[in-house]
């Protein structure tokens, strides 16, 4: 759905903030919300996978904040093939049954009991930030990762609208035919403003070789982001990266705990991180009415989701069997596993559940349409994508006393 620039929420919109977290599936984080709102396509409790002994293992609301997903579940292309199609070497025409998650996780430790924990999901009350935002604003029932594969190629879709044929982490130099969303915005006269905020220099970015190396001025720290919020100096477009590592704070002040929610990092640190971003925007009366915040996860991290990923517009690139590690190449014509995605704005209808299909290529697509209008040199996937900003659809802002606040313990 394209944006209607006559809508009050779009007219008011001045800033878009995208916060991309790490490696959790929709059902794992939000699946428990189905019991509260049947429109949310989560879990009934009857979903299951077979384990390696043939026993039926059911989903359970027993996910823990840490220590359960160690080792990190495999989510490279072949492993995701097994999770979706039940066969690590082959994809379509096999049907995407979503029955191979337990067997895939078993491969890593040969521990039958442990392999079943890949089906565990969070009870909603354990994730007060994510579940509150999902139920108070808009949750996407059909936001899929762009590729059935790992982090870096999926994150590339959020920056470029494509991964330039890559299905792995070995994404060093990107093609020149499509510019990043940042380059597009900065090429205009007058320039649009944009920033890519990493947490700190010790966590840095996953966009090392192309963006950080060549355009270091694009980047800022999380501290810079918070300052920009306080000083009403937020760029038109901000992309936030969480802290990817547990490390000593660079100023010697203490511990900087990873807040990316990547297994096996404590999920609560990520909850607090999301709440901090939200609160900073929410509690600034000059920012809240004109800012949209998208919280989204890059990929599912090998964790169970029950919805089969759909086909999509081919990307125009091809990966070889050697690239995918399977018997088949890949034409970027189907999506990866579903991830949590939530749109926050006072112009979003409370409790919205969005059925339209989205993937990360819509991020540069939506920003481009909103700030630049028509722009031809974009990937086929990005051109085909819908605009997530179209859900800022209310005629009037929601009342302030109807909007949640978070208090961090």
């Amino acid at each position, binding site marked *: 759905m394209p944006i209607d620039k006559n809508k009050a929420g779009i007219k008011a919109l001045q800033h878009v903030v995208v916060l991309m977290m790490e490696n959790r599936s929709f059902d794992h984080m939000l699946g428990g919300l189905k019991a509260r709102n049947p429109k949310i396509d989560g879990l009934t409790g009857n979903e299951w996978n077979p384990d390696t002994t043939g026993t039926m293992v059911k989903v359970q609301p027993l996910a823990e904040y840490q220590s359960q997903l160690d080792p990190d579940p495999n989510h490279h292309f072949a492993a995701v093939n097994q999770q979706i199609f039940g066969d690590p070497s082959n994809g379509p025409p096999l049907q995407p049954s979503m029955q191979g998650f337990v067997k895939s996780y078993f491969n890593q430790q040969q521990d039958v009991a442990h392999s079943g924990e890949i089906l565990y999901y969070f009870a909603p009350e354990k994730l007060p930030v994510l579940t509150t935002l999902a139920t108070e604003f808009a949750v996407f029932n059909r936001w899929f990762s762009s590729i059935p594969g790992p982090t870096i190629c999926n994150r590339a879709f959020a920056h470029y609208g494509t991964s330039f044929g890559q299905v792995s982490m070995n994404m060093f130099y990107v093609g020149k035919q499509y510019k990043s969303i940042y380059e597009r915005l900065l090429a205009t006269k007058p320039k649009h403003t944009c920033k890519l905020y990493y947490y700190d*220099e010790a966590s*840095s970015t996953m966009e090392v070789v192309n963006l950080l190396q*060549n355009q270091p001025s694009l980047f800022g720290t999380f*501290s810079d982001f918070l300052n920009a919020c306080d000083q009403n100096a937020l760029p038109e477009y901000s992309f936030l990266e969480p802290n990817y590592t547990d490390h000593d704070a660079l100023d010697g002040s203490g511990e900087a705990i990873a807040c990316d929610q990547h297994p096996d990092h404590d999920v609560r640190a990520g909850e607090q991180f999301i709440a901090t971003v939200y609160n900073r925007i929410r509690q600034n009366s000059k920012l809240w009415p004109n800012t949209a915040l998208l919280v989204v996860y890059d990929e599912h991290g090998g964790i169970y989701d029950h919805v089969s990923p759909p086909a999509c517009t081919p990307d125009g690139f091809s990966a070889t069997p050697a690239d995918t590690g399977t018997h088949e190449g890949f034409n970027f014509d189907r999506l990866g596993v579903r991830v949590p995605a939530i749109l926050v704005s006072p112009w979003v209808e409370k409790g919205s559940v969005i059925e339209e299909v989205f993937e990360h290529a819509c991020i540069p697509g939506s920003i481009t349409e909103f700030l630049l209008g028509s722009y031809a040199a974009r990937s086929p996937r990005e051109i085909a994508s819908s605009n997530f900003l179209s859900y800022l659809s209310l005629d009037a802002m929601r009342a302030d006393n109807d909007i949640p606040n978070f*208090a961090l313990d």
Partner: protein
Amino acid sequence: MEPIRVPGPSPTAFHKNRRISDLLLSQIRHFQHVAEKRSLKINREIARDVHTEGGAARYIAVVTRALRKGVPSTAAKLVPVGGSKTKPGKAGTVTRIAAAAKEPRSGRSKERGSAQRAAAKKAKRVPVPAVATAGKKSKSRTASRRKAGSNVSTKTKPRKRKA
């Protein structure tokens, strides 16, 4: 609407000696590729000690600073992460981010556009200590938990934590 309480991570959650994940291993390889391409002089011990999260972070900070030399920082003062500007959180929960020191301006080279596959191969040649990666059998969960616990017990003083 009453504020919704958000619990923080467990006191034992921080584990800077955790072995790096497949994701961090890839991030390190990207930084190594850039450091080699730009002939950045990195302290040998820091460059070698990248198999834990804390070690990887030290190395990443050094290379990131080198790449960002000359970019003015706006992080001139300490900023609370938890809580809010108008309603600060409890003293114990508000943590701080380091002020980024201003660095001298320097030139910046242009991307030379080498082939992706060649770059990936070259980067793979850079030695990285063996790590537990996705798809490989790892140590048992019990052992992992024990290690996490022992890491905590060796701490000598309580430290502030950033969210």
